[in-house]
């Protein structure tokens, strides 16, 4: 279970995350939605222990992310925004590095790397330098390092951004397959993705939660005047615009 307890993150002139408070349990796939600059990435950076919150705390399976950072971090697999990796390394050597940092050695290390390469279909580029790969492959390398240790908690910041429809479909299948008994938090702009993979969606705007429910519940709340199409993603989009556009107009 992840407990996000009243986290706030202030930067010099603005508050990126404003008193967020929610809990995610095993088996849930949480879609994390919001307009650009709403604080999605900042929240994920705090949950994964990259940024310290200005106040509040995050507890991963009983381990405080600040006080028991190593225990908490070893439970998390994280794909940061843009899927960063070391460009001068080959896919295999990069994944071996991650495996070693995660505490796998020798044969165990090799079998983990082999396993994820198969999982995200990187076999054809395994010996290539990461800098030579296409965006889709780089994203998959990022996913591979995130799932390498079969983490209990998987946090993916825009995992399908920049992928073609086939790759998107593949990544969604992957997330669905991985999700059993895990906690998954996915941030995305693509609302059909939420309907496709998530069991729950949270919409944040200006650092605050403005909606929290199953995709179906949120779709049901869409006001009629925003609905363009009656298909489910269209209804979710209508609700998203209804609830986040108010903030934009106020600016």
């Amino acid at each position: 279970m992840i407990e996000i307890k009243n986290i706030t993150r202030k930067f010099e002139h603005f508050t990126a995350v404003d008193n967020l408070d929610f809990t995610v349990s095993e088996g849930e796939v949480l879609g994390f939605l919001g307009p650009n600059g709403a604080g999605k990435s900042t929240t994920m950076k705090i949950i994964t222990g990259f940024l310290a919150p200005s106040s509040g705390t995050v507890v991963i399976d009983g381990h405080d992310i600040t006080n028991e950072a190593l225990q908490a971090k070893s439970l998390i697999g994280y794909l940061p925004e843009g899927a960063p990796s070391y460009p001068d390394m080959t896919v295999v050597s990069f994944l071996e590095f991650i495996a070693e940092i995660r505490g796998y050695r020798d044969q165990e290390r090799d079998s983990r790397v082999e396993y994820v390469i198969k999982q995200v279909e990187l076999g054809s580029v395994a010996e290539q330098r990461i800098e030579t790969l296409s965006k889709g492959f780089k994203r998959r390398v990022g996913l591979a390092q995130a799932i390498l240790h079969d983490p209990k908690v998987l946090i993916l910041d825009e995992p399908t951004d920049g992928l073609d429809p086939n790759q998107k479909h593949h990544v969604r299948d992957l997330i669905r397959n991985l999700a059993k008994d895990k906690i998954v938090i996915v941030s995305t702009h693509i609302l059909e993705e939420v309907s496709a993979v998530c069991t729950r969606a949270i919409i944040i705007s200006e650092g605050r939660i403005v909606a929290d429910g199953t995709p179906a519940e949120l779709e049901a709340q869409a006001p009629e005047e925003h609905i363009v199409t009656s298909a489910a993603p269209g209804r979710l989009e209508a609700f998203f615009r209804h609830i986040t556009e108010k903030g934009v107009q106020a600016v």
Partner: protein
Amino acid sequence: MKQAISPSLTVFKRELWSYFSTPLAYVFIVIFLVMNGIFTFDLGGFYIRGQADLQPFFNFHPWLYLFMIPALAMGLWSDERKEGTIELLMTLPIRLRDAVIGKFLAAWALSGIALLLTFPIWITVNYLGAPDNGVILAAYLGSWLMAGGFLAIGSCMSAITRNAVIAFILTVAICFVFVSSGSAIVLNAFSGWAPQFLSDAIAGLSFLTHFDAISKGVLDVRDLLFFAIVIGAWLFASAIVIEIKKAN
């Protein structure tokens, strides 16, 4: 909980491997050797002096390091920030301390390898005469320690900015202060009016003063301690800077 047995060693291996998988390591080593050759044999008058020692070789090391080491250190942390990999590294189950030390040790190992590859000069002087090899060994150790001092400064400057060129310039500037504070020009400027303890303190901060002592074969614990403290302090500062700056 699963954790690497030695996370800093894992980071060390990755970094060192990375140096040798790009042209960086080879360019660094070749330029280092060529410059050493020019300094020792041409400018240093190795043959003309007619003495069987490596003073002309080691005398130039502070000035050679002044430009070579910042080039080696400039990408240590700035590249991590530029590529965004710092976010990856800092969310892995590894302490910041281990990452700082692992990266530093990899760069220090590379400078050590470059230094060891100057061994033909040592063979030459042994072929031509009968030098005091104990002094030479001490000087090699002193030179490597000094390289570590420069690198630790470079590590900290590299953490300050995501721009490697800026990191390079800042490192050269600070290293220059640490080298030149022991030179005659700086000390003379203070000797006229400043109290003795002040000019002693300034000279005491200089890499030159401590390196000169070691390179003459005088292995004083205080000189060794000086470099150990310089390295430790700047690496500590690196960790603090990384912690503060990583959010931007």
